[in-house]
């Protein structure tokens, strides 16, 4: 495979262009920088935006972690990881967040807080939050430029009128550095506060829509809300108001996925598999220590 392909699959000019777009995105937090998204050997919509960011950033000393829906073992994550291993000889891959320098993810930001030396790359299907209220991209660009987001807030108003709460479950519009509002990719509301003042750089790549944007480290990220109806994350309380715990590791501070057992009952488990494993490991260690 190595023969005939440049390190990182993309040619050096393509990488240079993507890096230039990344620099611009970091300089203007939340601004969607257009770039010429390359053809990748997979369908657009399978993470080609995130992949191009990763391939442009990765070097031989990097350790990569790829997550899809919180898991390292889902088909999409495995395929992307294998592709990057194949085209970037010499890099290391890991499933442990603490060892990774570069993390490519879809739908989740890891539960464990990121470190300043880490870079998180998110795959984005729809980069523009205004697309739900304004079909014309020309007009959307003007609206972004003038920070004209009233119509997004009207959407929230209508939600509260109809359902007594804001019903956006993922892609929650978030204002970056007091100006641009971004679509933070399909991460759940649970992960949105992690963007605020994050120690690590967060990059967003939309391959099909040909946009790159960024939330630089230690930048304000504020989910849109009303003064008297504040933003809130998902609640994992049961009917009695008790916080549900992960059925596997027992964590009560993580984002839980709901599974249906064969008898129809529900089971809740951490969505972030690495976090789940680590919590399990830690509890085993404590157990062992208690018995010893």
């Amino acid at each position: 495979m190595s023969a005939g392909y440049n390190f990182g699959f993309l040619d050096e000019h393509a990488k240079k262009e993507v890096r230039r777009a990344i620099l611009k995105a970091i300089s203007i937090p939340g601004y969607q920088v257009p770039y010429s998204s390359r053809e990748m050997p997979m369908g657009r919509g399978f993470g080609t935006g995130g992949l191009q960011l990763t391939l442009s950033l990765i070097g031989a000393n990097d350790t990569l972690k790829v997550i899809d829906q919180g898991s390292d073992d889902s088909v999409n994550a495995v395929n992307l990881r294998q592709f990057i291993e194949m085209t970037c000889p010499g890099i290391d891959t890991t499933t442990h967040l603490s060892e990774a320098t570069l993390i490519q993810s879809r739908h989740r930001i890891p539960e464990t807080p990121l470190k300043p030396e880490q870079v998180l790359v998110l795959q984005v299907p729809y980069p523009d939050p205004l697309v739900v209220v304004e079909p014309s991209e020309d007009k959307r660009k003007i609206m972004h430029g003038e920070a004209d987001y009233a119509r997004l807030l009207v959407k929230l108003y209508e939600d509260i009128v109809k359902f007594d709460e804001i019903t956006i479950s993922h892609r929650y519009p978030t204002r970056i550095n007091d100006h641009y509002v971004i679509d933070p990719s399909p991460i759940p509301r649970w992960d949105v506060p992690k963007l605020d003042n994050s120690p690590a750089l967060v990059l967003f790549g939309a391959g099909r829509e040909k946009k790159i944007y960024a939330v630089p480290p230690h930048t304000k990220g504020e989910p849109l809300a009303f003064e008297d109806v504040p933003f809130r994350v998902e609640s994992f309380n049961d009917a009695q108001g008790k916080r549900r715990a992960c059925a596997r590791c027992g964590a009560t501070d993580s984002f839980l996925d709901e599974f249906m057992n064969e008898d129809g009952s529900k089971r809740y488990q951490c969505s972030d598999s690495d976090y789940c494993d680590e919590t399990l490991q830690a509890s085993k260690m404590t157990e062992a220590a208690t018995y010893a």
Partner: protein
Amino acid sequence: MRKILEVSNLSKIYGKGCPRCIESTGPEADTNMCPHCGSVVAIHDVSFDLHEGEILGLMGESGSGKSTVVKNLYFDQTPTSGEARFFEEDTTHEMFNLNAAQQRRLRNQRFGMVYQNPHLGLNFGISSGGNIAERLLMNDVSHYGEIRERAKELLSRTEVLLSRMDESPAAFSGGMQQRVQIAKALATNPPLLYLDEVTTGLDLSVQARILDLILEIQQERNTAMIVVTHDLGVIRLLTGRALVMKYGRVIESGLTDQILEDPQHAYTQRLVASAL
């Protein structure tokens, strides 16, 4: 009385225009389309002043350019030439020299517009309350309870049933839609309101109530208004001063009573005589 708007030499030409456009169009030429280049001179050399709390009428037949004047002043269109000055307590805005964001601020905060067709002024995809919320949110009101209260207050002022405020305007009758539009226009308590054929197409009793509402609002809030209509009854009832337009030119202007009782221009005479 304080002057709030001063329009001078406003012109709007659709098409590329040529040096002979102006001389070859107008009431004398009996057309507004230039025979040399085919451009349409929608309005030419329109000037007027407007004072606080005053209602100015723009009358004339279809295609005379009266709506174009208002659309230019509301920044729906950009004029070909001319100036307009909007006076606030402490500042004067050269309206056509402002940048897009400044124009948007004036439009959202200081002006209100009521269109003949409610589809232009309202978003039918959201509730009536949401339409008013939109205007408040544009002006950085970010307290849900406060927005809700203001919307209720405005809708009850314009006599829309509060029990229906969370319905889409699509579910309303024409008169109700017009009331929602007026409530939306008033949301920021603007000093200047543009009314473009607001009662056209409504039945007579509804027309009368909407006109009453407009007059009451003018009395209560001292709002200046520019009323565009071809209905002489509306002009007589609402306005103190009026401009008569034909083929893009102002052919007569003055006190409404004077124009209607003693029209000078032949066209105005015919217009007044033809009214039943």
